[in-house]
């Protein structure tokens, strides 16, 4: 009996008392849940921010701003530290004034700003910025610089300070290999392995033998990581897997994505971030199109290869991203007749960019750089799971945190 009275008080009287003094709702700030395997950062070069989406629901979870006036570098995530990092460039008066380059640190649950680390170097800026800013492990962050020196700046996230600038003229990119090791691609057709000492300073350089030709058949900067290896794909479709655990790095013999018939029909890889590797299943995803010399940034469709068998295993169908982008602007009912008509009639130009999650039931994200819509595919079957609309306006990159 006493209990019933107590329950009645808690259930009926108490809420009445509270609502009598407080408004029904109160504004507050959301926080992120524990990070999901199928999250994706969608940077936008026009809106100057990166939006975090959950690929399982298609919902936006939050965003990080960027002061960069080119494509924002995709935010980096350290699960161990519980932080996101954003490498940025800003001017004191908006688009003029003196320039600063810096790393912003955000809490991974609140997305609130925590601290910044100023860089004495000028971060490279490029439309696609592949391998321009990467985490090597949980302690060191590396940024690629272009002017005045071609170099990499090492940042110590534990001590939150800039460590040093490593000059590597004639090479480009930061391809992480281990907590104190990364690789870069060089203009003489080799790859450079850079090892750091315990404090993050340069310990050694080691160059691979030449495995590609920068003039006749260069490999793209978009590449897939496979443990201590990186899988590079050339303009003509040669696959070069380079193992950076050895000193010097070991390129394995190249193989082709195309048989003679396909090559003769003009099929070739292309896009902006058009190569992805799912390490556990040794799947290689490449965006392919029919083109000619100079078409290496054209969008296309997704082909799937088995890295061990070195052969194609699948081709994925893509949803109509033009329609997905335009339907919200047209303000028509998404499930209605006009939307269906748009999906059916609008040309779908293919994608420039793909990214795959690392878990055992992976999803593949795909976007066209000129359309603010992201396709979410089952990375094993190729089935379209959903299309995320209103995913910004334009941008050539994606990153699974």
């Amino acid at each position, binding site marked *: 009996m006493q209990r019933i009275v107590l329950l009645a008080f808690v259930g009926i009287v108490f809420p009445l008392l509270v609502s009598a003094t407080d408004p029904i709702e109160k504004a507050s700030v959301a926080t992120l849940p524990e990070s999901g395997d199928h999250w994706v950062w969608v940077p936008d070069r*026009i809106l100057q921010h990166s939006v975090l989406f959950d690929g399982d629901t298609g919902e936006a979870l939050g965003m990080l701003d960027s002061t960069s*006036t*080119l494509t924002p570098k995709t935010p980096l995530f350290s699960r161990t530290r519980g932080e996101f990092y954003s490498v940025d*460039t800003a*001017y004191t008066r908006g*688009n*003029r*004034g003196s*320039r600063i380059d810096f790393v912003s640190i955000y809490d991974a649950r609140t997305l609130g700003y925590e601290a910044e680390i100023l860089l*004495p170097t*000028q971060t*490279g*800026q*490029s*439309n*696609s910025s*592949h391998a321009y800013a990467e985490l090597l492990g949980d302690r060191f962050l590396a940024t690629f610089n*272009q*002017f*005045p*020196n*071609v170099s990499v700046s090492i940042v110590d996230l534990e001590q939150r300070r800039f460590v040093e*600038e490593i000059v590597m003229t*004639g*090479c*480009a*990119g930061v391809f992480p290999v281990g907590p104190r090791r990364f690789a*870069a*691609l*060089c*203009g003489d057709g080799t790859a450079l392995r850079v090892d750091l000492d315990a404090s993050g300073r340069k310990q050694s350089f080691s160059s691979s033998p030449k495995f590609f030709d*920068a*003039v006749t058949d*260069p*490999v*793209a*900067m978009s590449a897939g990581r496979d443990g201590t290896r990186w899988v590079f794909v050339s303009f003509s479709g040669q696959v070069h897997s380079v193992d950076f655990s050895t000193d010097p790095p070991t390129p394995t013999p190249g193989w082709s994505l195309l048989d003679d018939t396909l090559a003769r029909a003009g099929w070739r890889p292309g896009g902006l971030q058009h190569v992805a590797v799912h390490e556990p299943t040794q799947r290689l995803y490449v965006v392919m199109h029919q083109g000619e*010399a*100079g*078409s*290496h*940034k054209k969008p296309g469709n997704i082909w799937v290869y088995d890295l061990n068998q070195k052969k194609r295993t699948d081709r994925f169908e893509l949803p109509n991203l033009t329609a997905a982008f335009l339907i919200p602007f047209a303000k028509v009912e998404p499930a209605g007749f006009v939307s269906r008509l748009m999906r059916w009639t609008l040309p779908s130009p293919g994608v420039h960019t793909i990214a795959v999650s690392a878990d055992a039931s992976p999803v593949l994200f795909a976007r066209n750089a*000129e359309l603010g819509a992201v396709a979410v595919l089952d990375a094993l079957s190729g089935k379209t799971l959903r299309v995320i609309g209103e995913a910004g306006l334009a941008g050539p990159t994606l990153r699974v945190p």
Partner: protein
Amino acid sequence: MTRLDAWWEERARRLARNAGRRTFLARMGTLLVGGTALPLLPVARAYGEGKKSARVPAPAEGFDGPAGDPKRCEYWRHCAIDGFACACCGGSATTCPPGTEVSPVTWVGTCRNPADGKDYLISYNDCCGKAFCGRCPCNRNEGERPDYHWYRNNDINWCAGARSQVYNCSLAVVIGQATEAQPEK
């Protein structure tokens, strides 16, 4: 950082020592007197202390169709442009929009002019100091190469050396005639 600063300083000092010398292109003029002339076009003229090089066959321009129109991505000089065509932004293929600045560092490639069948050296200087022009976005990549072959890369922001490295649009300046297409083609 001091090591790097000292390194650049030494170069700066050397530059100052050489400041009194005649410019390269004034001397290129001497070179032209001899054999068949290497055609030198707008940039060359800019450096030529106001003197126009007499024997310069300019490329055919203003012909019909998109390849003759600087506002089109198909414009013949735009064969490896990545960005907004300045002709749509208040400038032209050779002039930056008002209030912006020409990047002093740039990359050079060749394009073939369909009207005369000749290859020309194209300098893709960026215009800098104002945000995206946002009009006539183009992305053509004939002979373009990844970042490690950086002097043929059009993804890089070439506004280095300008006061503000904020990218506005891209030029396509003919700096000379080429005897053949660039080796990447």
